[in-house]
C-alpha cells in the first residue's frame, strides 16, 4: 500500500511538471505570442517593451524563466499576476477555492442522491412506462448545454417568475461565504447546484441503470434470489452495491475535474468568483502566472482524486488490489 501511495505521488509530480512545461511552452514558444507586448500597454515604445521584459524576467532564457516562476510560486509564494501587480497568485486561488468547493460539493450531493434514486426506480419499474420516461429525462439532461440551462433558470427565477410564490426567495446572483451567513450561502447556491448537477444526474442514472441490468444476470444474484432473499434486499445489497464500483470511480474523476476548474461555465453564468472563473479570466488575459497556478491546482486535484478512486476501488472490490 505504501509503495502504491509513493508511486502515485511520484506520478503526480511527473504529471504536474509536464503540464506546467507544456502550458509554459504554449505561451512562450508559440510564434507570434508575446506577453510583453500586452504588458507594456497600447502602442509602447521599444524601450518600454525592453524595460517590461527585463522587469518580468522575459529577457532570460526559457529554462531560467520557468525555474524563476516555479520558485516564486512554490518557495517564496509571492508570484504576482501580469495584469494586476497587486494580485498575488497564491492568495487569489486560496480565496477562490472555497467558492468552487461549495458549488461542486453541493451539486455532487444532489447528483448522487437523485441519480441513485432514478437508477433504482428505472430498474425496479423496468417494463413499465416509468423506466423509459426516466431515461428520456436523463437523456434530455445530458443534452442541455450547462451555460444555457443556467441562463434559462436565471430568466425564470430572477425575472419572469421571480415575483411569484415559487421563486420569491431566490437572491440576486453572486456568492455569500458560508462563514458570513450560512443561510444566504445556501440560498445563493441552490439554483447553481441544480444547474450543475442536472448533466451528471442524467449521466449517472443511465450508467447505473445499464450497470444494474448487467449485474442482474450475474450468478451471485441468482444465488441470492435462490436463497430466498427479498427482491428489495437483492437489489440493494447485491446489485446496487456492485454497481457502486463503477459509480464511485466515475464520481471521483468527475469530482476532480469539477473542483479543478471544470465548473467554470456554471461559475461564469451565476457570477460565482470560483477557480474556474479565475482560470478563465487569466486565460483570456494571457496572464501566465495565474494560469500556471490554476492549472497546477486543477491537475493536482484531478490526480489526487484519481489516486483516491483507485484506493476506494480496492476497498469496494476485493478482487482488485493496488500492486
Amino acid at each position, binding site marked *: 500500500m505504501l509503495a502504491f501511495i509513493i508511486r502515485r505521488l511520484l506520478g503526480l509530480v511527473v504529471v504536474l511538471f509536464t503540464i506546467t512545461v507544456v502550458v509554459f511552452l504554449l505561451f512562450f514558444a508559440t510564434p507570434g*505570442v508575446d506577453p510583453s507586448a500586452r504588458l507594456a500597454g497600447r502602442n509602447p515604445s521599444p524601450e518600454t517593451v525592453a524595460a517590461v521584459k527585463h522587469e518580468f524576467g522575459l529577457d532570460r532564457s526559457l529554462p531560467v524563466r520557468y525555474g524563476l516562476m516555479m520558485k516564486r510560486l512554490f518557495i517564496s509564494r509571492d508570484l504576482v499576476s501580469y495584469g494586476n501587480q497587486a494580485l498575488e497568485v497564491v492568495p487569489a486561488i486560496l480565496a477562490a477555492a472555497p467558492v468552487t468547493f461549495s458549488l461542486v460539493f453541493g451539486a455532487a450531493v444532489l447528483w448522487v442522491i437523485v441519480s441513485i434514486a432514478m437508477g433504482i426506480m428505472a430498474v425496479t419499474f423496468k417494463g413499465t412506462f416509468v423506466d423509459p420516461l426516466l431515461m428520456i429525462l436523463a437523456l434530455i439532461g445530458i443534452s442541455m448545454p450547462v451555460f444555457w440551462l443556467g441562463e434559462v433558470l436565471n430568466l425564470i427565477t430572477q425575472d419572469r417568475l421571480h415575483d411569484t410564490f415559487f421563486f420569491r426567495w431566490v437572491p440576486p446572483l453572486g456568492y455569500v461565504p458560508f462563514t458570513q451567513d450560512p443561510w444566504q450561502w445556501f440560498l445563493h447556491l441552490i439554483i447553481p447546484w441544480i444547474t450543475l448537477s442536472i448533466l451528471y444526474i442524467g449521466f449517472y442514472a443511465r450508467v447505473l441503470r445499464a450497470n444494474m441490468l448487467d449485474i442482474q444476470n450475474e450468478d451471485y444474484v441468482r444465488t441470492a434470489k435462490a436463497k430466498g432473499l427479498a427482491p428489495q434486499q437483492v437489489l440493494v445489497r447485491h446489485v446496487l452495491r456492485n454497481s457502486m464500483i463503477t459509480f464511485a470511480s466515475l464520481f471521483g474523476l468527475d469530482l476532480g475535474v469539477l473542483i479543478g476548474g471544470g465548473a467554470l461555465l456554471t461559475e461564469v453564468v451565476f457570477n460565482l468568483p470560483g477557480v474556474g472563473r479565475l482560470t478563465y479570466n487569466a486565460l483570456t488575459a494571457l496572464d501566465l502566472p495565474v494560469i500556471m497556478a490554476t492549472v497546477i491546482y486543477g491537475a493536482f486535484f484531478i490526480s489526487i482524486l484519481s489516486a483516491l478512486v483507485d484506493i476506494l476501488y480496492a476497498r469496494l472490490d476485493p478482487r482488485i488490489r493496488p500492486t
Partner: protein
Amino acid sequence: MAEFAYEPEPEVRLAPGESVKEISGRSPWRIAGRRLARDRIAMGGLILFLVIVVISFLAPVYSSHIANTDPFVSNISGTTVVDGKKVDVVQQGGGGLGLGETPIGPTWHSNYFLGADNQGRDVAARVLYGGRASLLIGVGSALICCLLALAFALLAGFFRGWFDTIVSRVMDLIWAFPVYLLAITIATVLLTTPGGVKLWFIHIQATSLWIPTLIIALIYVPYVYRPVRGQVLSTREKEYVEASISQGASSLRLMFSEILPNVVSTVIVMFPLMIATTVLTEAALSFLSIGVQPPKASWGTIIQDGQGLLYTRPWVAIAPGIMIVLTVLSLNILGDGVRDALDPRAKVRVRE
C-alpha cells in the same frame, strides 16, 4: 495460455425479439443495419438530426426568400411591418428608465420571426446560419478526432514498442488536462496571435472555422484512442490474425484487412456520441467568445449575444439553445441505437 483456454467468443448475439433465422448467413454489418432500421426510436433520432442539418443548410434560402434580411449586416435604423404598421427594428427607450435601445421581439411572421438582436439582425436567420457553423464544426471535429484516434491506435497497438510508448504518453498528457481548460488555453494562444496562425505553409485566419474544429478534434482524441488501442492489442492476439501471419501477410494487410474491420465498430458506436459532445463543446467555447469569431456566428455565439438581452428579449438566447438541445438529443438517441444494433446485450449464442 491461449491454446489451453480456447473458447470461441459468440461472434453474433441475438437482439431481443430476433430469431436465429433472421440473422444466419448475413454479414455483421447487414445485421446491424437491419436492427438499426427497425429501431423506431433510433430512426426518429436520425430523422430529427437530418431535419436540423437540412434546415440549417437552407439558411441562405430562408434569409433571402422568406425573411428578406441579411443576418450579418446590422440594421439598427431599419423597419419592419407588424399587423400592417411600420415598426422600428430597434426601438429607442425600451430600457428600465426609458433609456437605451431594445430590439424588436418575436413578430411570429416571416420577417423577424424570432425578433432581432441588439444590432437589428434577424435572430431566426442567424440561428439557421449559426447551425451551419455549429454542425460543420461538430461533425468535422468528431470526424477528424475519430480518424486521428483510429490511425494512432492502429499503429501504436500494432507495432507496439517505442512508438506505442510515445503516442500513449502524449495521449495521457492530453487526458490529464481538464478538456475545457486545454481548449481555452490553445484557443487563447491561437486567437491572440496577430494575423492568424502560420504553420509551415498553412495559414489559417483567426476567423476561420478550422481553429475551433481542430482544437475540439485534438482534445477528444484520447477518449477514442484509449478504447480502440486496447481493442487493437487484443485483436492482434486472435487466432485469425495468427493464421494470416502464418500465410505470410504483410503488416499493411494485417492492419487493414484483419484488425481494422474488427475495431472500426467501436469507432462507429462512438461517432454519433462524439458529434453530440463536440457540438456542446463548440457551443461552450463560442459562449466564452473563444470559439467561432465574428462576423461568423454559431449557436454558442448567438447565446452569448442574447445574454445581455436575456430579461428583455429572451428568445435571442433561448432559440439557439433549443436547437443545441434537439441536435444533441437526436444524436444521443441515434448513438444508443447504433450501440444496441452493433452490440446487443442479450446473451444468446447463435448455434448452427
